[in-house]
């Protein structure tokens, strides 16, 4: 098994810098999720690691070996492509067998290897089919089987669930962690789906323009996002963002929402007097009885069930719209006037100008660079 290190990777296409000084270490046996919007360079990064593209600067080290100038076929990585990239003129068996054939494995070893991984992925009944005759789900599993069959120490999975239907995506999201853990491989998993990222990743690297914006465990990314953008990308329903300007008086730091004073913890000190954006996760908001201290009066606009949650859209007196979510089946108002309690500890405060999170108990958070 292997550790994967990226040192100061730079990649440009013409004048467009896709990756600017990206460094990252993936530990042995870890599943690292590369998460980010399209165009953030996730796929390019995978291709650099796989060796089908060359970096303009920087080093890629796999298991202590510098891979600069090493051709793709000698890097010992397995990769599953977003578009599957199956060989259309070969049947599923031959597709999966290619990594074993490349090592000149004896025929019965190839057969045994392909069949075992096909059984694992439940595609053993379609091995004689050409890709054209496979469903999307089977194609995806075939591509995955091809990446897994040679037990490569490093596995690169480029959004493998992107092009499959929702049901299968859900199933695979549950199966994949076990499957990958069994293999013991070091995995880089690219996705644009935050749920997939949270479900699969030991750590998540959030990619932004030309680099990694934040690197951390799923909990860290969710609870302490480095910036506004990241906070917005994670969470469903999305985080409520309200323009505020916290101020301080004798009783402490507070903001005014619809004329109601909401106390903030002392750690919000750096936000005082600045134009800020307060991030309120919908699940940290609770409906409370009228008259509760610090509760914000709102009008309920609409209520929508969302999977296991009930999401309520409310409007404050100031005309701001806020989403509130609560577990489905729990009681809550569905019309008329209501009162919201804001958990001050769960408020994320961002600088409006830079979008950076104003970290608790210190100056503006330094941009977390991806060196772990």
């Amino acid at each position: 098994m292997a550790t994967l290190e990226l040192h100061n990777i730079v990649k440009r296409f013409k004048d467009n810098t896709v990756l600017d000084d990206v460094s990252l270490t993936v530990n042995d046996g870890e599943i690292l999720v590369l998460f980010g919007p399209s165009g953030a360079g996730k796929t390019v990064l995978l291709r650099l690691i796989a060796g089908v593209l060359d970096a303009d600067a920087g080093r890629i080290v796999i298991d202590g070996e510098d891979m600069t100038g090493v051709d793709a076929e000698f890097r010992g990585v397995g990769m599953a492509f977003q578009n599957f990239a199956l060989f259309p003129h070969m049947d599923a068996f031959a597709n999966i067998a290619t990594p074993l054939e490349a090592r000149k494995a004896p025929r019965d070893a190839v057969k045994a290897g392909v069949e075992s991984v096909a059984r694992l992925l439940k595609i053993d009944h379609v091995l004689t089919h050409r890709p054209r005759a496979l469903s999307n789900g089977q194609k995806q599993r075939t591509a995955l089987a091809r990446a897994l069959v040679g037990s490569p120490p490093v596995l690169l999975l480029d959004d493998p669930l992107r092009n499959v239907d929702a049901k299968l995506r859900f199933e695979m999201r549950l199966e994949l962690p076990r499957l990958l853990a069994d293999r013991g491989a070091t995995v880089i998993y690219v996705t644009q789906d935050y749920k997939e990222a949270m479900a699969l990743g030991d750590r998540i690297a959030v990619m932004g323009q030309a680099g990694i914006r934040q690197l951390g465990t799923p909990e860290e990314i969710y609870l302490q996002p480095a910036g506004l953008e990241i906070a917005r990308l994670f969470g469903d329903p999305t985080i409520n963002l309200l323009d505020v300007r916290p101020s301080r008086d004798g009783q402490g730091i507070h903001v005014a929402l619809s004329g109601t004073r909401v106390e903030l913890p002392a750690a919000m000190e750096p936000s005082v007097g600045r134009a800020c954006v307060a991030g309120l996760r919908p699940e940290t908001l609770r409906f409370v009885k009228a008259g509760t201290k610090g509760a914000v009066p709102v009008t309920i606009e609409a209520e929508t069930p969302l999977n296991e949650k009930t999401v309520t859209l409310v409007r404050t007196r100031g005309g701001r719209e806020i989403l509130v979510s609560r577990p489905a089946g729990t009681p809550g108002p569905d019309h008329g006037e209501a009162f919201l309690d804001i958990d001050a500890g769960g408020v994320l405060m961002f600088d409006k100008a830079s979008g950076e999170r104003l970290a608790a108990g210190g100056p503006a958070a330094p941009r977390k660079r991806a060196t772990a």
Partner: protein
Amino acid sequence: MEHTSLIERILRAVALALVVVFFMFPLLWIFLMSFQTNETILSIPPELFFTPTLQNYTALITGKLTSAAGTLDIAFMRNLWNSVFLSVTSVAVSLLLGVPAAYAFARHKFRGSEDIAFTLLSFRFAPPLLVLLPLTLYFQQLGLANTYFGLVWVYQLICLPLILWIVRGYFEDISADVEYAYRIAGHSWFATFRKIALPLAGPGIAAAGLLAFIFAWNNFVFALVLASADKQPVTVGALAFVTASGIQYGQIAAAIVLSIAPTLALALYAQRYLVEGLSLGAVKG
């Protein structure tokens, strides 16, 4: 499906028939001529009903042309063989050189790659006669005039650009990811070319090869200038039928029938691949 009235269908059938007659008539006429003697061909008005004769074909195959002025030797079968040999060899050489080159142009953007590719294409629109004069002089000095080697070489002007540019398009249409996947699986670039790129571009290569074959087969002017009797293909060899005692229309017709037969057979056989190959690039997945 669309609904069409009876009149519309009849009109369509008539229109199709007209088009077919218009295009096929010369061929049909030549086919009929090939079974007639020179006298019946030249009779006015032309006779639609005649006693067919195989004498044109026997004359061509035996190589003895009997006319009013006596017997004349013609090398038609030799010409036919030359045509086959020159076309097949030229296309084979072109494929051997052009397919890897097309792959390189499709997959690797190197300095000047577009310029080189375009220069090769420009061979196709240089007027052959303009090229021929200097070429003849060079060939005579180099000892390449009137050799198969020299002719096959010159035929590359016809075949190579065609194959290069058609096949390049097919290689470009193959998803690069598919090739990457094969590389990552542990195969060399050459194995990727052989096992992935070549089979996937197969129909396109076949179509390009067939087109090049037809162009090579129909070439006239290169062979006319650069080859003498024993190396001439049928296109040039047909000139022999213009004899001192008149033009041998019957033999010319028979020669045409014989000389289009191989390309026709090849085209009919490969039609499926040709259509698939030529339309493959049109539909992007």
